[in-house]
């Protein structure tokens, strides 16, 4: 039996925060999604969302978000794993996060310079006799930079999960004659699944709504739901349509959260 811990007072400020900064904005977004451009009640935004333009956009957003998340995971997992083996692993982890402190726009500009026809990347390729090619404004550059931006947020939870893992478990597995691969499959992966899941959550959903990079790095070759929201809020001022897309994003988020929910939560 569990006794009550120090009172319910903790609930108060937290719930107040949720009410003001989470529930109220959701209600507002929902409300705006039923308004047309002149502020009258309408369902047309929802009808509009199911036209080919937006469906195509939704599909391509999911496609790119999926690729970004996949590559993030493929690169982040080994990185996190190797980091835990390092001597000053906490320090190295901090150094992984540190680049996020430098302004995103500046880094994007740096990438424009690096990926340019006469930039560092092409100069590097030329050393190996490869002709300069267009890197900027391709799917490759977009996914590369997006992965770059998100990867620290994928490494962090996986690292935490790996670090929590009890090393004796690995020894036990090895003592029982399991190969490294089997140990990895049967012991490490299941135990770090929660970390992977929260990594996927914090990468996939923001990736769905990337904007700015779609223009700076992909030259508007990639149009995501986020780009459309930004357009509607800041350029067209059709807040209703912007809010409608936001409603669908919130729904997508809820579904993803549900799918990646952590099963065990007993204590």
């Amino acid at each position, binding site marked *: 039996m569990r006794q009550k811990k120090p009172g319910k007072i903790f609930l108060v400020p937290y719930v107040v925060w949720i009410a003001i900064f989470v529930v109220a904005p959701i209600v507002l977004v929902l409300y705006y999604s039923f308004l047309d451009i*002149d502020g009258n009640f309408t369902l047309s935004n929802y009808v509009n969302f199911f036209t080919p333009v937006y469906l195509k956009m939704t599909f391509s957003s999911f496609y790119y978000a999926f690729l970004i998340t996949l590559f993030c995971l493929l690169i982040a997992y080994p990185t996190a794993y190797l980091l835990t083996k390092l001597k000053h692993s906490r320090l190295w982890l901090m150094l992984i996060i540190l680049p996020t402190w430098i302004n995103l726009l500046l880094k994007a500009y740096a990438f424009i310079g690096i990926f340019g026809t006469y930039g560092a990347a092409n100069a590097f390729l030329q050393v190996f006799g490869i002709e300069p090619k267009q890197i900027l404004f391709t799917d490759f550059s977009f996914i590369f930079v997006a992965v770059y931006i998100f990867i620290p947020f994928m490494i962090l939870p996986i690292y935490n999960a790996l670090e929590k893992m009890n090393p004796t478990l690995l020894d036990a597995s090895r003592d029982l004659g399991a190969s490294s691969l089997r140990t990895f499959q049967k012991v490490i992966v299941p135990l770090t699944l929660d970390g992977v899941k929260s990594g996927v959550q914090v990468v996939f959903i923001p990736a769905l709504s990337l904007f700015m990079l779609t223009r*700076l790095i992909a030259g508007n070759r990639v149009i995501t739901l986020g780009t459309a929201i930004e357009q509607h809020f*800041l350029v067209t001022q059709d807040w209703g349509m912007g809010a409608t897309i936001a409603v669908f994003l919130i729904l997508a988020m809820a579904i993803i959260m549900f799918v990646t929910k952590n099963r065990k939560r007993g204590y």
Partner: protein
Amino acid sequence: MKALFQTLVVVLILVVGLFFVNHRLNVSEGFSGSDTLTIYNWGDYLDPDLLAKFKEETGLTVVYETFDSNEAMLVKIEQGGTNYDIAVPSEYMINKMIEEDLLLPLDHNKLPNLKHIDPRFMDLVFDPGNQYSIPYFWGTVGIVYNSELLDENIVLEHWDDLWNPKLENEIFLVDSAREVLGFSLNSLHHSLNTTDKEKLIAAKEKLDLLTPNIKAIIGDEMKLLMVNNEAGIGVTWSGDAAEMMWDNEALDYVLPPEGSNIFFDNMVIPKTAKNVEAAHQFIDFMLRPENAAQNAEYIGYSTPNLSALELMDPEIVNDERFYPPDAVVERLEVYENLGKRNLAYYNELFLEFKMHRK
């Protein structure tokens, strides 16, 4: 626990210290006094030396704040929590702001230097009688191209030349619905203020055919990219083109004769202004020929100030690309405020066009 507490104390001491330093800086710069004039303008759209000169003349402290789009500026002024004394929106936005009653009427008696402004640029559709706004800079939409990157046989004179199949993957477009649909409309000899859906759809379908030639649809980065020889052609504003040409001599600018957009950025006084008197003083200060000339040479956009033109480098003033002759100016159109619904339609078509490129 102890470490937590220590960190908390260190952070709080740091914050207090920063507050103190900030306060000192603000005081030493005069930002927190009452004799201030707050200007809300595009980033780096005013020669800082002129601000210093104004400060010296009037004793007022100038606070210079920046926005990056007309829409962003509107949101801030509409919201009401701000008190800018001067803002510099573009013409279609001025029209909107007048409609929404966000601007103060100007007192022309306090602006004796208004007489220097070219009458061609006064009393335009977006602000009849210049009741609310005074021209600051103007410009056009045209084609920048790099003569060294392009084949010699390629002629760029008309909008239709952009559709040349030899220009595959060579063109940058500005990420702005009205400019892009506008040049397509112009190439079809339609007005760029049309609200006729059939004409707009035709223009959009024509744009779809341009897809193979387009390298990217981008914003201000275009300047950097054109200067770095990333593409041969860019469709952009004249002032941006002028800036690119300063940095890369291979670049040139054409204004297609079948028509284009002429835009204005004008000075206005928002309703929420605190120092209306100083705002008038500042507008008049900027209208003074020597100041307008200095500013125009710093920025690179075209000045509407006739007397200033006489003071400027003749090479700049006689450049027909940026100061086109009357016959050309007559064919240029100012954007009219088409209303929210039509603008939304423009943007929808533009979005569809961007999606088409996949």
